[in-house]
């Protein structure tokens, strides 16, 4: 049992902090701090800055740009990035398809895709969920039928995040409709979004933004060589991918950043002639959230130290579950601090309401997603009850 970081890790932390706060363009970090949407160019510029310094895909195999870091180093990297308001490397590239290709792709696929994925020369999007396959992903119905040297894809995907920016999609498709278990007949295909027969339709959300999309496939021809790994093994790759996704999804550093900002917002709003920060109920609420975040961060540190063979610790479900709840609690706190100012959500020019209060409710509404994606919190409870408690 040791509290302190070793001198080497202290130095590592300082190195990360210095890089993130001095090398990533201020204007991009300001956009994240203001909780405004990033443009495609800002995402790309940030990720390329990280990649040039070897900081975009540190968890990948070393030969493909990974750093061979310990789980604790990975934690520090992620936390410092979030605290510094640096946009994380695009998750579809860095956390999802990249590690899958590195683990299961053939050499040709690795050489063709991994460098361009790390450098976001390809912007990937995810074709997993379907209108009738959400938490029950294995019931997906998009099909791929072999025709000569091609697969022919028909069907529909949904909740495709930032698909409007994407160059390529990685897509779960049913290649063997006769398989006894529905998990067995699924494969993973990748193809460009401008392939004939691919149509993208935006989904408007209650926060007023355009973040997710529906994607339709009509006789889309995909060369057979663009099937990743083995035919009908796609479910294994999906589980691998979703397990990776869960580890970084707690976003503890980002929550710490927002809670610190919330404290400054509480100083800016007065109630009864005194700053809200002096109101005992407000202070209690902030202090309780701070303690919950501390407990979560400590749990993350415990869990990362026990991740064996790159497999996520079963308790990583706790991180996803509580991490998402705390993100939601903090965005709710910010709306409450804004009070009536929160109604000026869509004000553009001519409003005297501070920007943070205008963003508050759209963000709160947008963040309802975090307990739904990445395996809904009910799925996480099922995992905890089944895998950990044996229920």
């Amino acid at each position, binding site marked *: 049992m*040791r509290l302190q970081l070793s001198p080497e890790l202290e130095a590592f932390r300082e190195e990360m902090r210095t890089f993130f706060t001095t090398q990533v363009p201020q204007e991009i970090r300001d956009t994240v701090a203001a909780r405004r949407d990033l443009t495609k160019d800002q995402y790309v510029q940030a990720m390329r800055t990280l990649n040039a310094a070897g900081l975009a895909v540190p968890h990948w195999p070393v030969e493909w740009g990974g750093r061979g870091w310990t789980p604790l180093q990975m934690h520090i990297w992620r936390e410092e990035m979030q605290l510094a308001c640096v946009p994380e490397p695009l998750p579809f590239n860095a956390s999802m398809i990249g590690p899958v290709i590195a683990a299961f792709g053939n050499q040709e696929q690795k050489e063709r895709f991994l460098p361009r994925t790390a450098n976001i020369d390809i912007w990937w999007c995810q074709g997993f969920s379907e209108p009738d396959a959400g938490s029950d992903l294995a019931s997906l119905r998009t099909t791929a039928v072999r025709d000569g040297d091609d697969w022919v894809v028909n069907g529909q995907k949904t909740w495709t995040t930032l698909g409007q920016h994407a160059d390529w999609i990685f897509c779960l498709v049913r290649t063997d409709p006769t398989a006894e278990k529905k998990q067995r007949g699924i494969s993973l295909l990748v193809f460009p979004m401008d392939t004939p027969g691919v149509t993208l339709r935006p989904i408007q959300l209650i926060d007023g933004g355009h973040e997710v999309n529906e994607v339709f496939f009509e006789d889309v021809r995909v060369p057979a060589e663009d099937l990743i790994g083995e035919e009908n093994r796609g479910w294994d790759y999906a589980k691998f991918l979703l397990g990776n996704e869960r580890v970084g999804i707690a976003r503890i550093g980002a929550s710490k950043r927002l809670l610190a900002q919330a404290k400054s917002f509480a100083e800016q709003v007065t109630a009864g002639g005194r700053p809200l920060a002096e109101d005992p109920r407000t202070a209690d609420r902030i202090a309780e959230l701070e303690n919950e975040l501390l407990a*979560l961060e400590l749990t993350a540190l415990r869990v990362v130290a026990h991740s064996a063979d790159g497999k996520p610790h079963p308790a990583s479900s706790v991180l996803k579950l509580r991490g998402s709840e705390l993100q939601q609690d903090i965005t709710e706190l910010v709306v409450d601090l804004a009070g009536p100012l929160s109604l000026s959500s869509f004000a553009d020019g001519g409003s005297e309401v501070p920007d943070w209060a205008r963003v508050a409710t759209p963000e709160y509404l947008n963040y309802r997603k975090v307990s739904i994606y990445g395996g809904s919190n009910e799925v996480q409870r099922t995992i905890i009850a089944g895998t950990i408690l044996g229920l």
Partner: protein
Amino acid sequence: MDFTFDSEQNDLREAVRGLLERAYGDGEQRRRVTGTDPGFDEKTWSRLAEMGLLGLPFAEEHGGMGAGPIEVAIVAEEIGRVLAPEPFVEAVVLAGGLVAAAGTDAQRSEVLGGIAEGTTLAAVAHAEPGTRWSPSASAVTATQDGGSWTVTGVKEPVLNGARADVLVVSAVVDGGGTALFLVRGDASGLTRTGYRTHDGGRAANVRFDGTPAELLGAGSADRTAEIERVLAEARIAYAHEAIGSMDTALRTTAEYLRTRKQFGVTLNRFQALTFRAADMYVSLELARSTALWASMVSDAGGDVIAAADRARLQTSRAGRHIGKEAIQLHGGIGVTAEYTVGHHTSRLTAIDHVLGDGDWALSRLAADVRGHETVDPLGAPYTP
């Protein structure tokens, strides 16, 4: 940062677990022991002493083992796991801790040596009726006449106050400060009325009426700061005792859900129940992380008071959640005395109120919330 025990700590845990499993692995044995005074088993107490556990945190020159907060945490968790009624935190961490913090070398050797050997049961007489969770004495006063002191007033509840061989008493002295005193169990002017507590323990009303007392330490300097620190160390130890208890309550509940049948199926077929068990696990693990961290802060010489408040808040919330749900998921059997799980809830409730509850800790943390931007557990050592 490293949350793993070393091999000696693992050995300690195995040894303590073995001893306590033999004593209390069967819940009936605990009921029998707590049913008669002094509410714990003197033989088990002696065995704990023989293992060196009753002198665990004391310096070797005072008869102790010279171990640290991590070892104390390990023992406390094992105590909680089987609800051992032996007053480890109360006598060793709290009473012994105050003597170690304030006593002269001679007092430390005598009292701590006696605690470590299991021959002296020490109890802290600090709480007073009508006050709560203060590091200072309030209505109990001490008066000096020549070289000797007397104490007057009422302390209650004093845990193990009737059985104690020596009481560590806080009292207000001239000038308004709080000093600490040793009062022997056979002192004149000492009236002790013992009773059972809901969790199977013992407490007492202790009345001092011009009772001869020995000043702890040299000079009647205010001891509030030392009391505050030792209370914090005890809060952290209690956090671990609570973790042990919650862990057993959850495991017992999960086992019950796997085996109890209603409507022709085992209860784990009902998602309404398994999801609640999953939430109990989340509460437990978050509290465990915080308690372990607080012990590491204490071990590293960091801000033990703030760390204890954080552990107190987290284990209070978790203890209530898990204690209540453990009973509800069992149904009626959970509130019967013959079944174990309700006793865990009772003990968790007692721990929650002896040195400050979650809301109390929260109000202390909230008073300081503007003093820092973020809470950084990787900072070394932790300062708020």
